[in-house]
C-alpha cells in the first residue's frame, strides 16, 4: 500500500549548536486509514518530530537533515505559503498545550471557523452551522462558541483544538497528546469520533501519547522514541505483548494497573549500559 506520509532520516538540532541533536535520523511512514502512536520518554523528541513534519519548528531550532514526503510531495522543500495551503486543510494538527496555541483575544467559535473560511470558503449561516456542529461533536454546547479560551476548562480548550483540527476533514491528523485533559468518558467519545473520521475519510493519524491504555485501544502501529531516536517500531500487538528493545520493555514495566496492586516504580536504567552510544 502507498503511504500518505513518509518521514526519512529526520534530524533536528538547535541553531546555536548544530551537533546537539534533539531528533536523530527518525524514519517512519503512515498509511491512509491507519493510526500510528508515538510513545516514549518525556523529552525524547516526539513533539519536535511532529512540529518538524508541519514545518513549525521554533526559530531556535532547525531541521538539519531528512525529508518529509506527503502525498508524493516533499514538504521540506515547500515555502511558508505552500505549507499554509496544506496545514489545517489536508493535515490537521492538535498541539500539546492548548492554551498556548489558542488566541486569547478571539472567541473559540471564530478560531474554529477560521480554517473553514480560508480553506473551504464557508461564510454566514453555513459557517455558523458548521461551527455549531463541530462543537457538538466534541461535546461542547454550541452556545460556548462565543466564549474566549480562558473562560473554558482545560479539557474544553483541548476539545476546541480537536474541533479546529478536524474542521476541514484532513487526510492526515497529527495529534500531540490530545486527550490528556479529558476524563475517560469524554476521551472515549473523542477517540470514537476520530475513529469514525478514519473510517469515513480514510484519514491517517499520528497520535502521540503516554497512555498505553489508549495505545492498546486505537493504534495499528507503534513507534517508540528514546533520547531523540526511534528504538522500536511495529504492529501494536507485537510492541505491547512482545517488545524487543530493552527501553520498551522497561517502559511497559512501569505502566500502572487499575487495581493498584502493582508497585509504582520508575524505570531501572541498568539496561542502558552498552545499549546507546551517547
Amino acid at each position: 500500500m502507498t503511504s500518505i506520509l513518509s518521514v526519512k532520516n529526520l534530524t533536528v538540532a538547535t541553531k546555536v549548536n548544530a551537533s546537539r541533536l534533539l531528533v536523530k535520523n527518525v524514519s517512519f511512514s503512515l498509511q491512509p486509514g491507519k493510526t500510528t502512536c508515538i510513545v516514549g520518554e518525556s523529552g525524547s523528541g516526539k513533539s519536535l518530530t511532529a512540529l518538524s513534519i508541519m514545518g513549525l519548528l521554533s526559530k531556535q531550532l532547525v531541521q538539519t537533515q531528512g525529508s518529509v514526503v506527503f502525498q508524493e510531495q516533499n514538504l521540506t522543500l515547500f515555502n511558508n505559503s505552500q505549507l499554509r495551503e496544506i496545514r489545517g486543510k489536508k493535515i490537521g494538527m492538535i498541539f500539546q498545550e492548548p492554551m498556548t496555541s489558542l488566541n486569547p483575544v478571539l472567541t473559540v467559535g471564530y478560531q474554529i471557523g477560521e480554517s473553514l473560511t480560508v480553506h473551504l470558503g464557508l461564510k454566514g449561516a453555513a459557517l455558523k452551522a458548521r461551527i455549531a456542529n463541530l462543537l457538538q461533536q466534541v461535546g461542547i454546547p454550541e452556545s460556548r462558541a462565543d466564549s474566549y479560551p480562558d473562560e473554558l476548562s482545560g479539557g474544553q480548550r483541548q476539545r476546541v483544538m480537536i474541533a479546529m483540527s478536524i474542521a476541514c476533514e484532513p487526510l492526515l491528523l497529527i495529534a500531540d497528546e490530545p486527550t490528556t485533559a479529558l476524563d475517560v468518558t469524554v476521551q472515549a467519545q473523542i477517540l470514537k469520533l476520530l475513529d469514525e473520521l478514519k473510517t469515513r475519510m480514510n484519514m491517517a493519524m499520528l497520535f502521540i501519547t503516554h497512555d498505553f491504555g489508549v495505545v492498546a485501544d486505537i493504534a495499528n502501529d507503534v513507534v517508540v522514541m528514546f533520547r531523540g531516536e526511534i528504538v522500536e517500531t511495529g504492529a501494536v500487538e507485537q510492541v505491547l505483548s512482545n517488545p524487543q528493545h530493552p527501553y520498551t520493555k522497561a517502559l511497559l514495566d512501569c505502566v500502572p494497573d487499575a487495581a493498584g496492586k502493582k508497585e509504582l516504580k520508575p524505570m531501572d536504567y541498568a539496561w542502558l549500559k552498552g545499549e546507546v552510544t551517547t
Partner: protein
Amino acid sequence: MSQIILEAKNLNKTYTQRSGRFGFGTTLVQALDNVSIQLRTGSTLAVVGESGSGKSTLARCLLQLQPLESGEVFFQGKDLAQMSGEDLRVTRRDLQMVFQDPFASLNPRMRIGEIVGEGLLIHGLGSRDEQKSQVLSMLNRVGLKSEDVKKYPHEFSGGQRQRIGIARALVLSPKVLICDEPVSALDVSVQAQILLLLKELQAEMALSTLFISHDLRVVRHIADDIVVMNRGKIVEQGEVAEIYENPTQTYTQQLLSAIPGQKHLRKQALNA
C-alpha cells in the same frame, strides 16, 4: 483517625457566560454547587470527574485565587478569608499549587533557576547559596538536570515544563500541595518517579495533597480518599479502594468502566 488540614464548606461559584447566537444573552453556569471537602493531614485526596465539572475552579477557590460566591475554606482550623498580615504570608507559602497548563503558568522571560527559586527569595528562606542548592536538588528530584537552571521555559518539552511547575511548588516545603493534572504529560516512568517523590515528602514532612486527575490508574495508586465530581456537584466520595470496588453512583461506574486499554490488559493478565 487523623486531623483535617484543609477543609472547604459549602462552596458555591457561578460563572456568567455569554450566549445566544449574537452573544448578547448570558447564561449562568454553576461550577461549584455546594461543594464540601476535607483533606486529612498527610494524606492524598483525589478529585476526579467530568471535563468541565469544576475541578480547577475548586482548586483556585481553595487558594482564594478566585472569589467565591459563598462558602468557607479553613486551613489548620483558620478561615482563609479572615487571614491577614503575617498569618496570610506564611499560609501562602504553606499552600502551593501546580497548575493544569504548565506553559501558561511559567514566565517566558525568566530562567528556570529563577522561576523555581522565586518563592524562596520572596519568602526570604535561607541564604542565596542555600536557595541555589535547594533549587538544584529539587530539579534533580523531578528528573531535570542541573544545567537546566539557565534555560528558558520554551526550551523544554511539555513534560519537562510540567515538572518545573512541580519543582517550583515543592521547593517551598508546603504543608498542602494542590495539583491540577500534575503528571498528565509524563511518560509512565517519570510519572512513577514524581508520584513516589510525593509519597516520600508525605512520609518526610506530612505533606497533604489534593490531586486532580483524569488518570484513574494513577489515582488508584496515589490517593487515600477520592471525590467524584459531575456538573459542579460532588456525586460520590470515600476511600479509594472502597469506591473502586463498589462504586454506587452510575457516573462513577461509567468512569471506572471507561478506563482505556482494559481489554488488552485483561488479555495480558490472562496470558501471564
